[in-house]
């Protein structure tokens, strides 16, 4: 055996993968010389001395799952029935009907479909992408759809789509979905947005999912399984789900394009806290309020492609407030 083959054999042995035949092979090789035995020992001792570090304590599972469960209760409904594999071609082929096909034809078909299955329906991993404050990201999905991810947002999806295209979103993203027949569903903490092929924006933060459609149509529903109401949104319409409630009636929105894609902010009776959160996400600079009661003051206005100071200046001017920079961030206070 050459050096490489020996290495692989020894490795298989020490890692517990070796078969009886391989162990015998190794035994034989070891009996050949002292040098062989010394070599093996060296590897064996290094290998067995490496032990996985263990954390000194692991949180109790029940406590851990309690937190997971709380978020699961708003578990995302999977939408229409055809998403579930029950009706899929693949499960019917591998279920009972296969036995009805007889002889060589049957065998050939099984081989053929196994190949197709392995090739097409391969085990998808879940991929994760996220942005921090001040970051944006454009991602192409396995089906060619594009996702523009806004700041402080997370998205995940399988490496390969099967019968449906499922995306998980926390934060904000703009989707351009390719039409390929299978349902495209965005799952947020408290809602799901299902489309066929279209362009739309989803803002899902703090248990509020807000959807704006710029092209095509989407179906918005709550993730709450006991709440089946859904709202169909066409281009130019927006709606939202707050916590466990059903989606609200669609409203028209006037902007033809989604504001954040062009670095524009649109606020409509928006509380200052929300405004400052959005500014922090975009500019990655801290903004605080001297007096917490200021956070609920609302503002209506549009800010386009300005730097942060200009925006703060305008906000303070309209609300008779002042701001100052203290080295680590901005503070807004009453005049």
């Amino acid at each position, binding site marked *: 055996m050459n050096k490489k083959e020996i*290495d692989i054999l020894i490795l298989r042995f020490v890692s*517990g993968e*070796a078969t009886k035949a391989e162990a015998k092979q190794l035994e034989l090789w070891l009996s050949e010389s002292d040098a062989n035995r010394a070599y093996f020992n060296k590897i064996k*001792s290094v290998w067995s001395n490496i032990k*996985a570090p*263990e*954390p000194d304590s*692991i949180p109790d599972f029940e406590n851990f*799952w309690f937190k997971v469960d709380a978020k699961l209760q708003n578990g995302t409904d999977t939408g229409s029935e055809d998403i579930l594999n029950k009706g899929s071609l693949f499960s019917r082929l591998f279920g009972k009907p296969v036995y009805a096909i007889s002889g060589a034809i049957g065998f050939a078909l099984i081989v053929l479909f196994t190949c197709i299955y392995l090739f097409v329906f391969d085990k998808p991993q*879940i991929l994760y992408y996220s942005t921090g404050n001040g970051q944006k990201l454009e991602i192409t999905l396995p089906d060619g759809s594009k996702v523009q991810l806004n700041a402080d947002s997370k998205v995940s999806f399988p490496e390969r789509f099967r019968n449906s295209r499922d995306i998980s979103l926390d934060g904000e993203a703009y989707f351009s979905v390719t039409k390929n027949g299978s349902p495209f569903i965005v799952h947020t903490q408290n809602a799901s947005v299902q489309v066929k092929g279209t362009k739309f924006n989803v803002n899902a933060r703090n248990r509020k999912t807000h959807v704006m459609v710029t092209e095509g149509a989407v179906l918005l529903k709550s993730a709450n399984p006991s709440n089946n109401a859904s709202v169909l949104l066409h281009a130019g319409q927006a709606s939202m789900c707050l916590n466990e409630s059903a989606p609200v009636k669609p409203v028209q929105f006037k902007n033809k394009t989604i504001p954040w894609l062009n670095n524009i902010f649109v606020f409509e009776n928006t509380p200052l806290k929300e405004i400052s959160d959005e500014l922090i996400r975009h500019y990655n600079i801290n903004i605080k309020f001297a007096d917490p009661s200021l956070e609920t003051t609302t503002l209506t206005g549009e800010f386009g492609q300005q730097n942060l100071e200009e925006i703060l200046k305008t906000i303070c001017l309209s609300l008779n407030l002042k701001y100052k920079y203290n080295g680590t961030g901005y503070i807004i206070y009453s005049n």
Partner: protein
Amino acid sequence: MSEQELITAVKNSDAAAFKELGKLYYRQLYGFIWRRIGDKDSVEDLLQDLFLNIWRLRNNLDEKRSVKPYLFAAANNLIKNYLKSRSLKEKRISELLPDDLGTDSHGEKELYNYLDDVLSGIPENQKIVFLMNKFEGFKYSEIAEMLNISEKTVESRMSKILKTLRDKFRSAKLLLISLIVGIPGIWAIFKSGNYN
């Protein structure tokens, strides 16, 4: 319920079944994430994220396949994303060990420092294979499934790491440790039948 039945139930939005599934793999997944990241609070956050995502994307579960490689692959991607988005490096093994290792500690600490050096120098795809086998106890076949590669590839990556370990293994002190541990060890192995 068998694992296969659990998966089917989870796909049917059975939250209780999902909890059962979580219970089966909680400890292992926690250990896996902790060994890469080290910070317990982040580990718990990531593990929560993992389960929530698996739930949201449950349409993609496949009862015909083992769920373990799928869970660990998802965890692996989550970890990679977490480290990348915070510009962090994986925890060195020596950083994970408790400060007081007992009387044999000096030899062990040196071994782990040496291992850390080796691991930091090898390609990611080799390192993950090694970690999954040595630390997480995955068989080659499970690693192959998790990373979507062949068993032969797993084998060849493992042997490359071994070569790297061996090539750097020249310190006399470590050689001494190995001689002390090794010689009685070799006969014990054959006696115990440590093979499949």
